[in-house]
């Protein structure tokens, strides 16, 4: 088909002969005569990068999770010991529940707020562009910058939050150094940062709902909250499904927020799986143990995705 393929084959006569002997020739030739050679050539950078930095690491990490290795002494095969130890490790149990706490509060709360905002923004109102930009400001900002600002806001003596609470007659706590308030504070910041992202996805979903459904509902005498519950919510469910899965996956992996605002403290009350994983891997060089944690995380994400898909299938009437 094109000269390049043929010269490529001619240059490798030994391989070609070997392939012929193995009965592979026709397959090989067919493959090359189609777009195969071009595909291989154009995909080369991707395949190399993908192999080196994704596929091999994924497998490597899995192998590592069955070993004990500090990067100095030889690798020691320990079987499922790492996983067995995780279940017994009190710190891991704590950070596991902290992760669930973080996700369990921030995902539903963030979804409700972003849906509410998207519904408001979907109306035919003025200043749409301004609102959209305002909500997107935290999304584009780096988490480090956001963490600096919010640490200042949470400061018990001169922070803005306690100042506003004071105006309402509430004595605010010492947010980031209280074992009971640090996590809610971290969650609040995280919702604040991400709400604009989810709002935009909901907005795109809302714009995909045909006006005729609302008109039909109106003819049936539906009030606005009927329209919301019986038209918007069901028809938006594919979007809601997507946002839920993505939010859970994102919040299981939370790290920057916690690391920058509280360093996991006080008393590990805000430490999450990735934070503990980071400490184990890059502070103590427990590479095997940390890899096992990475796979627990992977497994959690997998479960959420499977549950969501199953749920989606069950009510796929829409």
């Amino acid at each position: 088909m094109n000269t390049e393929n043929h010269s490529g084959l001619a240059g490798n006569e030994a391989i070609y002969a070997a392939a012929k002997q193995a009965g592979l020739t026709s397959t090989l030739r067919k493959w090359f005569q189609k777009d195969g050679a071009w595909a291989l050539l154009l995909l080369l950078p991707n395949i190399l990068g993908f192999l080196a930095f994704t596929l091999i690491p994924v497998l490597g990490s899995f192998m590592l999770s069955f070993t004990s290795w500090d990067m100095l002494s030889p690798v020691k095969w320990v079987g499922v010991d790492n996983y067995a130890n995780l279940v017994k490790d009190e710190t891991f149990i704590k950070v596991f529940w902290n992760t669930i706490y973080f996700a369990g509060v921030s995902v539903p709360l963030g979804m409700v707020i972003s849906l509410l905002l998207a519904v408001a923004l979907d109306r035919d109102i003025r200043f749409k562009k301004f609102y959209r930009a305002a909500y997107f400001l935290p999304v584009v900002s780096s988490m480090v910058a956001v963490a600096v600002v919010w640490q200042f806001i949470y400061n018990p003596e001169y922070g803005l939050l306690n100042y506003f609470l004071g105006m309402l007659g509430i004595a605010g706590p010492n947010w980031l150094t209280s074992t009971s308030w640090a996590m809610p504070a971290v969650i609040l910041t995280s919702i604040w940062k991400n709400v604009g992202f989810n709002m935009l996805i909901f907005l795109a979903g809302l714009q995909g709902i045909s006006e005729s459904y609302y008109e039909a509902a109106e003819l049936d005498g539906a009030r606005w909250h009927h329209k919301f519950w019986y038209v918007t919510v069901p028809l938006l469910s594919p979007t809601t499904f997507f946002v839920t899965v993505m939010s859970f996956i994102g919040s299981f992996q939370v790290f920057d927020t916690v690391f920058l605002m509280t360093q996991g403290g006080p008393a590990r009350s805000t430490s999450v799986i990735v934070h503990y994983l980071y400490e184990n891997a890059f502070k103590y060089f427990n590479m095997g143990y940390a890899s096992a944690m990475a796979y627990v995380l992977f497994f959690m994400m997998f479960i959420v995705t499977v549950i969501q898909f199953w749920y989606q299938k069950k009510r796929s009437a829409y």
Partner: protein
Amino acid sequence: MKKQTVLNITAHLVLLAGAVTMILPFLWTVSTSLKQLSEVFVFPPKLFGQEIRWVNYLHISDRFPFSIYFLNSLKITIIIVIAQLITSSLAGFVFSRLRFRGRDPLFGLYLATMMVPAQVMMIPNFIVMRHYNLVDTHWSLILPALVSAFGTFLLRQFFLTVPSALEDAAKMDGCTPFGMYWRIFVPLSKPAMATLGVFVFMGSWNDFLAPLVYINTQNKMTLPLGLASMQGMYSTDWPVLMAGTVITIIPLIIIFLLAQDFFIKGVTLSGLKGE
């Protein structure tokens, strides 16, 4: 009609309250960055200090190589954006337009890795980087980011919408697949490329975990890591810290305002894959 007005006012009230909550912290950051240290602790808080101290911005560079952080971030981000645009568009083209054995399983494998958390890859990648003495170099940040499954997916989706009549015409004129990619698909996909570019820029500019893991030397740090290291050392000097925060955020805000539509498109496109 009247009911509509009431609902619109309610919508405005909700949106305005939210918008204030979003903007106020930024406003506060800028105002604090221009204050004197003593004024930070004034109660009740004031939006402006007695004088506007631009000099806080100069103080950052006295104590930290902030311009170096900035240039490092810029260099790394630009390399990654260009590389991902090239590799993702090539792969997107191959997966959407070329026919060869094993294409769909290979693409499926790509998609599947999008579900694997970055933390899984992080540990072996660190070990490899250390083995090749690449820790504490910018290579450790650039190499793993040259290729992206997400970018491949995004551009493939776009390329699928290009009418095949164009492809047939090009084939008839004796165009090679690369010629087709270069002369037809790349020029046609400028908006999609811009969307991906803006998205990758944001991700790379804000990346914190990778620099935290790999970079130790001050002069090699990127802006987020530099700002974080500054926070550790000067946590009490709020005005200077806030000035650093402003410098870290401003380039992204400028890009966002210039390319708002591409940002929005990036979000919605990344949202559409769920449907």
